[in-house]
């Protein structure tokens, strides 16, 4: 979890009483020396730590000593400088094998005895490649240099000791230990420790979007207990020593302590650290001391380069390249032996030039000469070409409109540039659920408190209405801001889900009615409605009525009549909503309020006392610690007494009590006024739409007094997870509004009571191990220390327990538990996310004991996390269950269609989720992963042995099921693969743990292979990645993982292709992914169309490339048989080199980028076609050999037709080569025309350009090259040749003969094969649809009851409850 949770810590020291001036103004004498003596040694010894002193502070020497090795803030991301560019770049480039090969050839050509061409000619490929790459590198580096320069020269105000003030300095001049002063909206230049904030509460807000793309504000806290706060800064006297970790790249962790001269240590945490490149928001001024600078900042250390993955295809390619090497060696050996024999038979003839060399040695020389001559056989340039082609493919993927999300205005991000073709070979897809399949837009749906269910029917209706609105609005193409959009709703997809009928009670007709009714409002609402879906919850009338009792002036406390809640229940309800409002890390802001500040409290006295009374009388837990007199009095005296009471304990508040109370009186008046205005504006404002009407018509809650609803709507909640926001909004709907938050307190509105300042003692943030979070607060009404915990039901249910005490209470509690569990199950069945809310009241002593340990944990540097976890676990026990909430997370649009298409494409879809089993199963139903006639295999067991047995049993069951299916299918006259039934394995986290162990994993893999889909629920991030790894490695398949959250990161990284959904949960998944899309449905086109295209394009291009090289090189080889294997060529050497480098290099690239073997529409409609590339039918070894064989044939034709045409004539060597070259070019280009599936004007242009380039070049060359290019001077050759009809006669015959077999093959193949595939796929589709329809009818007739999952009732108790569905 890399979430930037802010950890609140308060370390109270007695010294704090000195308020303004603090300890550092104490006369420097004794403490200073002591401090030095005591601490100078450990700081040097510990290599793991970094010690920071103020640069201009009193400890100059220490500063010099400690900071010498720390990097400055100047950054340099360039690789080269002007001087080092050439050597460095060359050095880098020669790390590539391809360039080494070229270099080797070039050097080889400098050896006189093996020299094949002019010396400079073999340098050309090398020089061209090196130059191209060097230019590219230089440009990139220059851009980086400019950027660095810009960043380094940014100006920031840094404290200067001489002038005793802040002076402007460039970022690059900032050093560790400098004090930096920043204002709002400034970017943080280095990692700073926050020492001062203009905010009275010592907080500051930062936006980390530069770092991780999250736009919500994060709160940072001044190092606790610094006396700067609120006072003038006197930094030259800053004497504290900061000890912290060495630079690391963990954004979410910072540990250390600050040691004051008097030896007091203050723990430093992540919440004290301002990270470089984040932006200060909503805070006027902050001051921090630089702890990490430049390249040592966390932001820079996280800056890793682009991802490099080697694709499957490239691995295959390497073996083929090896075959090419073998081929080359064989050819060269042939030439060597041939030359040796030829030499041996010569008896010093007149044309013999070098008669002294022995034949064997001459043969050896020829071997190397031939390697130079035949060098293109090894398709080294193929690697460069592949990279270029992939860039082109990426360009088109990036530009696809179908992968563009209009609402978010975001395209697909291609982060890995070299695995495009892997998209075409995916066999397993591992998907996260929340945020990937679903919207991750949490909407409060229903809740259960005190064992009573509040179904929120009206809420359900509202959600439906919004869906209808959305559909309508979508038609009008409304532009939505990114913050509130991205929620195109799929009501259709959800209404397919039979098991969640209760959720969607509205039929289509009803929806239409709603639409008609709503069309008037849509126009007005479009700007705001989107956020309202999440924000506005229609309260349940029943619950509202009960809450109204709370605010009614007269409490009928002992009344047991119907409709009146018992006061115990009321307490529960109040606590429940308090917990919803407070147990979170939501940051509150409002557009009108620039700064996050807690508005002052005002507490209407009227009903307060009664409430207190009620709380005291009827709480089952000991409420007696607070005596009534303490809460009597004026509002501010109440709060102050609360605060004062706190003071008597072991801690104090940083905000002076008089501060609050002093300002509260005018604030009260102000707010009374504003509330009036608010209510007025509200009445005529945007909410005058249908919402209001409905509320009026159905519930009585709109009769609430206007001052209670005042400026709720202006509050903006910025939550770390959507669940939190949903809950806070839900609480707000019940007038239990979180109004503001500071480090030490929360401002909460309570219905009937008004605003309360709640003292916030601790937040124990959420983590995935505990699966819960807690807040420790001082209860505003009772004054007790209360822990509110919110978390996954499985955890909370275990931690809650029946309170000791009266039988009656126990009975009630048992009942609540039972009922709540029932509701939980039903929520889960409806596909809702459930959270349990619990509370615990702490005795003061108990709290103090815990507090001590907690403080210890917070201030420790070593294994702080473990200690904190332990501490949290100690606190979160003996909880009292309050209730549970059900949050709706809708499916994204087109998810069922996408999953169906992927499954038809032969991709096995697994869902790995942390959710409950029931929720997961329901989502699986909703997204058609699970079909009504599928057999559900549930695996959940408690021990390894049970797990082994279970796996065995399930396998048998599958076996049996398959047998029966085959026999059953036999009756139907169908094979089992045709029918839509299959097995779906559902396993939970524990079982997965066992199944992933060494001795069971094979069983698990075998079992899962037989299943159509697998759903792993309750799985941890680690398990997710383990599952992916297991399947990937054991089955050797291509795996794709898709997820949106930080918990999917490991899975995404392990998979062959990782896809991040850029959604609600930050950017971690995106940052670690290869591709990032915004919706799940984009996968369909990405895989089925782009994946297939990329794969087939690349595979075809590689084959074509190899063909091209083999074909051309063999022409030279055949000539050796007629020139005594001497390594001479019949072509001008420039033409020879350029043939590959220029004349025929672009067509394959175009082929690789633009070819479309099947139209996109067909691929989308017939996902079955994906299986062609999935099983890599295009690029199989036989295809390679087939291609090489064809190349051999063509080269034979291309050489021997001219040979026989010119045999015995007076043809010169270059004249002989001229028709061969020309026809080779024509053959190669036309071969591509035959092989291309599509030809566009670009293809035509490139082909025409290539050929005219060739002919133009050779003609021009043969005119102007008088004495150049010896020994193959081309003067007059081509002009003469091309003026003779024989040239064209030969070229025509050669070209046609060479291409004839390929043409015939392609024609037959296209006529027979491809149409057959298309037809059969179409037939399959029709068949399976017909079959599915019949099966559905059959199911409806025979087993209507079985459609609900059987296993949900008591899944955990039966270790091997393999329930069979359908």
């Amino acid at each position, binding site marked *: 979890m890399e979430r930037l949770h802010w950890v609140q810590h308060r370390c109270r020291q007695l010294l704090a009483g000195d308020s303004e001036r603090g300890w550092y103004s104490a006369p420097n004498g004794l403490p200073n020396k002591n401090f030095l003596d005591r601490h100078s040694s450990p700081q040097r010894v510990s290599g793991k730590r970094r010690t920071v002193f103020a640069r201009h502070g009193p400890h100059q020497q220490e500063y010099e000593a400690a900071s010498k090795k720390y990097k400055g803030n100047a950054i340099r991301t360039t690789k080269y400088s002007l001087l080092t560019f050439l050597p460095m770049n060359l050095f880098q480039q020669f790390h590539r094998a391809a360039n080494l090969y070229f270099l080797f050839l070039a050097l080889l050509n400098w050896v006189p005895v093996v020299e094949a061409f002019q010396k400079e000619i073999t340098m050309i490929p090398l020089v061209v490649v090196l130059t191209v790459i060097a230019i590219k590198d230089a440009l990139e580096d220059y851009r980086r240099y400019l950027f660095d320069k810009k960043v380094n020269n940014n100006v920031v105000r840094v404290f200067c000791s001489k002038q005793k003030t802040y002076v402007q300095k460039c970022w690059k001049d900032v050093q560790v230990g400098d004090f930096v002063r920043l204002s709002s909206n400034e970017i943080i230049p280095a990692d700073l420790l926050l020492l001062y904030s203009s905010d009275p509460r010592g907080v500051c807000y930062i936006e980390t979007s530069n770092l991780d793309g999250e736009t919500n504000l994060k709160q940072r806290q001044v190092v606790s207990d610094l006396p700067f706060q609120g006072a003038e800064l006197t930094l030259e006297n800053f004497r504290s020593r900061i000890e912290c970790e060495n630079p690391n790249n963990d954004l979410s962790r910072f540990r250390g302590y600050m040691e004051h001269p008097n030896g007091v240590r203050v723990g430093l945490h992540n919440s004290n650290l301002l990270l470089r490149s984040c932006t200060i928001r909503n805070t006027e001024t902050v001051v921090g001391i630089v702890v990490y600078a430049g390249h040592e900042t966390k932001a820079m250390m996280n800056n890793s380069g682009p991802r490099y993955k080697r694709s499957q295809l490239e691995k295959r390619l390497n073996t083929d390249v090896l075959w090419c090497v073998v081929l080359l060696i064989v050819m060269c050996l042939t030439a060597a032996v041939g030359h040796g024999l030829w030499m041996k038979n*010569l008896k010093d003839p007149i*044309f013999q030039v070098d008669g002294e060399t022995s034949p064997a040695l001459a043969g050896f020389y020829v071997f190397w000469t031939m390697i130079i001559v035949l060098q293109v056989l090894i398709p080294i340039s193929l690697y460069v070409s592949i990279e270029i082609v992939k860039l082109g493919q990426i360009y088109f993927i990036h*530009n696809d409109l179908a992968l563009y999300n209009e609402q978010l205005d975001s395209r697909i991000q291609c982060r890995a540039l070299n695995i495009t073709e892997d998209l075409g070979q995916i066999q397993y897809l591992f998907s996260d659920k929340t945020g990937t399949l679903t919207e991750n837009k949490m909407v409060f749906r229903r809740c259960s408190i005190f064992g009573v269910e509040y179904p929120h029917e009206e809420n359900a209706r509202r959600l439906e209405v919004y869906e209808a609105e959305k559909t309508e609005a979508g038609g009008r193409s409304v532009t939505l801001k990114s913050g509130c959009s991205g929620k195109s709703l799929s009501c259709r997809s959800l209404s397919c889900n039979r098991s969640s009928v209760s959720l969607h009670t509205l039929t289509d007709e009803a929806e239409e009615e709603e639409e008609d009714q709503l069309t008037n409002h849509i126009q007005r609402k479009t700007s705001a409605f989107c956020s309202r879906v999440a924000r506005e919850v229609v309260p349940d009338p029943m619950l509202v009525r009960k809450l109204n009792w709370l605010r009614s002036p007269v409490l009928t406390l002992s009344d047991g009549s119907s409709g009146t809640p018992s006061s115990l229940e009321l307490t529960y309800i109040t606590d429940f909503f308090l917990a919803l409002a407070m147990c979170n890390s939501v940051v509150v802001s409002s557009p009108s309020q620039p700064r996050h500040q807690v508005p002052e409290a005002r507490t209407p006295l009227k009903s307060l006392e009664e409430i207190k009374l009620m709380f005291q009388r009827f709480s089952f837990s000991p409420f007696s610690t607070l005596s009534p007199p303490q809460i009597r009095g004026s509002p501010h005296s109440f709060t102050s007494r609360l605060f004062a009471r706190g003071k008597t304990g072991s801690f104090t508040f940083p905000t002076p009590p008089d501060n609050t109370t002093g300002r509260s009186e005018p604030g009260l008046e102000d707010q009374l006024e504003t509330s009036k205005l608010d209510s007025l504006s509200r009445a005529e404002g945007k909410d005058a739409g249908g919402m209001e009407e409905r509320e009026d018509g159905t519930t009585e809650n709109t009769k609430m007094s206007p001052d209670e609803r005042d400026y709720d709507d202006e509050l903006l909640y910025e939550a770390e997870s959507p669940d939190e926001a949903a809950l806070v909004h839900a609480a707000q709907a019940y007038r239990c509004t979180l109004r503001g938050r500071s480090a030490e307190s929360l401002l909460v509105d309570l219905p009937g009571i008004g605003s309360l300042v709640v003292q916030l003692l601790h937040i124990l943030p959420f983590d995935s191990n505990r699966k819960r979070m807690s807040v420790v607060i001082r209860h505003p009404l009772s004054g007790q220390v209360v822990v509110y915990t919110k978390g996954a039901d499985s955890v909370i249910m275990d931690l809650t327990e029946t309170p000791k005490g009266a039988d009656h209470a126990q009975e009630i509690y048992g009942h609540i538990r039972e009922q709540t569990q029932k509701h939980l199950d039903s929520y889960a069945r409806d596909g809702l996310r459930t959270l349990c809310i619990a509370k615990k009241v702490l005795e003061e002593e108990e709290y103090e004991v815990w507090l001590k340990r907690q403080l210890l944990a917070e201030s420790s540097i070593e294994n702080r996390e473990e200690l904190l976890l332990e501490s949290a676990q100690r606190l979160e026990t003996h909880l009292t269950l309050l209730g549970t909430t059900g949050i709706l997370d809708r499916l994204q649009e087109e998810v069922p269609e996408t999953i169906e298409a992927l499954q038809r494409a032969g991709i096995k879809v697994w869902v790995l989720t942390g959710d409950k089993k029931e929720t997961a199963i329901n989502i699986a139903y909703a997204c058609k992963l699970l079909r009504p006639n599928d057999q559900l295999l549930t695996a959940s067991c408690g021990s390894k042995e049970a797990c082994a047995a279970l796996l065995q049993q399930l396998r048998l069951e599958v076996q049996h099921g398959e047998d029966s299916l085959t026999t059953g299918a036999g009756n139907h006259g169908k094979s089992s693969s045709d029918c839509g039934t299959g097995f779906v394995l559902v396993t939970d986290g524990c079982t997965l743990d066992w199944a992933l162990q060494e001795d069971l994993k094979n069983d698990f893999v075998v079992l899962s292979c037989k299943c159509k889909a697998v759903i792993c629920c309750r799985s941890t991030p680690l398990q997710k990645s383990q599952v992916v790894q297991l399947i990937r490695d054991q089955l050797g398949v291509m795996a794709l993982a898709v997820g949106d959250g930080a918990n999917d990161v490991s899975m995404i990284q392990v998979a062959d292709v990782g896809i991040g959904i850029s959604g609600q949960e930050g950017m971690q998944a995106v940052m670690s992914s290869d591709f990032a899309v915004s919706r799940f449905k984009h996968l369909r086109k990405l895989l089925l169309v782009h994946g297939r295209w990329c794969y087939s394009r690349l595979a075809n291009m590689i084959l074509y490339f190899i063909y091209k090289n083999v074909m051309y090189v063999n022409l030279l080889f055949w000539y050796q048989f007629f020139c005594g294997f001497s390594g001479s060529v019949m072509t001008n050497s420039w033409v020879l080199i350029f043939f590959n480098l220029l004349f025929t290099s672009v067509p394959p690239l175009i082929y690789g980028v633009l070819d479309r073997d099947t139209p996109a529409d067909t691929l989308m409609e017939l996902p079955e076609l994906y299986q062609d590339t999935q099983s890599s039918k295009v690029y199989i070894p036989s295809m390679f050999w087939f291609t090489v064989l064809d190349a051999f044939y063509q080269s034979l034709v291309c050489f021997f037709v001219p040979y*026989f045409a010119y045999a015995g004539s007076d043809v010169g060597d270059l004249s002989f080569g001229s028709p061969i070259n020309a026809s080779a070019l024509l053959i190669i280009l036309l071969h591509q025309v035959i092989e291309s599936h599509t030809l566009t004007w670009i293809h035509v242009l490139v082909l025409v350009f290539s050929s005219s380039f060739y002919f133009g070049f050779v003609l021009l060359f043969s005119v102007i090259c008088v004495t150049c290019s010896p020994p193959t001077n081309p003067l007059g050759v081509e002009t003469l040749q091309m003026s003779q009809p024989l040239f064209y006669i030969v070229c025509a015959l050669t070209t046609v003969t060479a291409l004839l077999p390929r043409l015939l093959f392609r024609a037959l193949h296209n*006529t027979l094969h491809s149409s057959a595939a298309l037809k059969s796929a179409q037939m399959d589709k029709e068949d399976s649809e017909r079959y599915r329809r019949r099966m559905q009818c059959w199911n409806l007739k025979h087993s209507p009851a079985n459609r609900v999952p059987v296993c949900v009732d008591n899944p955990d108790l039966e270790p091997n409850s393999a329930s069979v569905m359908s």
Partner: protein
Amino acid sequence: MVKQEKELANRPDNTAYTQQRLPAWQPMLSAGIIIPGFVIIGLAFIGIGVALFVTSQSIQVLELDYTGVEQTSPCFKCTDQTIKNCVCKLDFNIDKLFEGPVFFYYGLSNYFQNQRKYGVSKDDTQLSGDLDNFKTPSDTCLPYRYDSQGKPIVPCGAIANSMFNDTFKLFQIVKGVRKQVPFDGKGIAWWTDYNIKYRNPSVPVLKNAFNGTVKPISWPRPAYELDTSDPANNGFINQDFLVWMRRAALPDFRKLYRRITDGDYAKGLPAGNYSLEIAYNYPVLDFDGRKKVLLSNVSWMGGKNEFLGIAYLVIGSLCIVMSIVMLIVYAKFKFPEED
């Protein structure tokens, strides 16, 4: 609308190009293109083939081997290399008129003018008349760069050194009288070679340019005395030298020696008896080579070549056959599915 477009800054362009929807021709998918295509190609090829075949048939070739390996051969005596200036006579007759213009070739077989080291061994700069390279020939000429005394060889290199030096005279025997057939030695080399590539040094007297140089080792006379009959045909622009310097592509080759275009023989060689007088100098036996003389007339397609005509006919017929096969396949697999 304007505002909306502004906000969607990231929206990809909706063009046929970026959306990969360019109108495209799907080649070869239909047999409807293939079958007529094959038929057309086939017919065209058969037509060309017939034309080529007929043309080739009309070309007359007369080939006379004079290597002298066989003892019966009149040149057998000359195979002994000790005999200098050996001349042998080869008699032959022509049955019917050998249509002119007749090209007179000499042919060598098993002669590897195309081997790499041989082909490299010349100095193009020297041959273009650069006097500097007269003094110091390019090192590509090795081992024929300097002679044993260290004097530069001009023209240097193996190609020049190995220049063919047999000479021929053709006589028609009319009523027992030998009547020499006039040879035309002009314009047998490439125009570009004669006019551009090879140049004599621009000195008034050609011989002076060769001061301080030696002739190639195998040559009987220096380059400026190659043609004693025509002073203009000497040095590097000697036609025979130019023809020789154009290296043959294949080990069995012929090179144009003279054309018979003048006088009585402009229309061709009439039927009758002829005698070929050969100054036998060039050694070929040490690489099992053969020397021959070829008389041939030429057509628009060059010399006699039966291969091309037959190949065109074969490929053309193959195309026709294939189109029929395709038609059968197409009928069998395609038609039933269309209803």
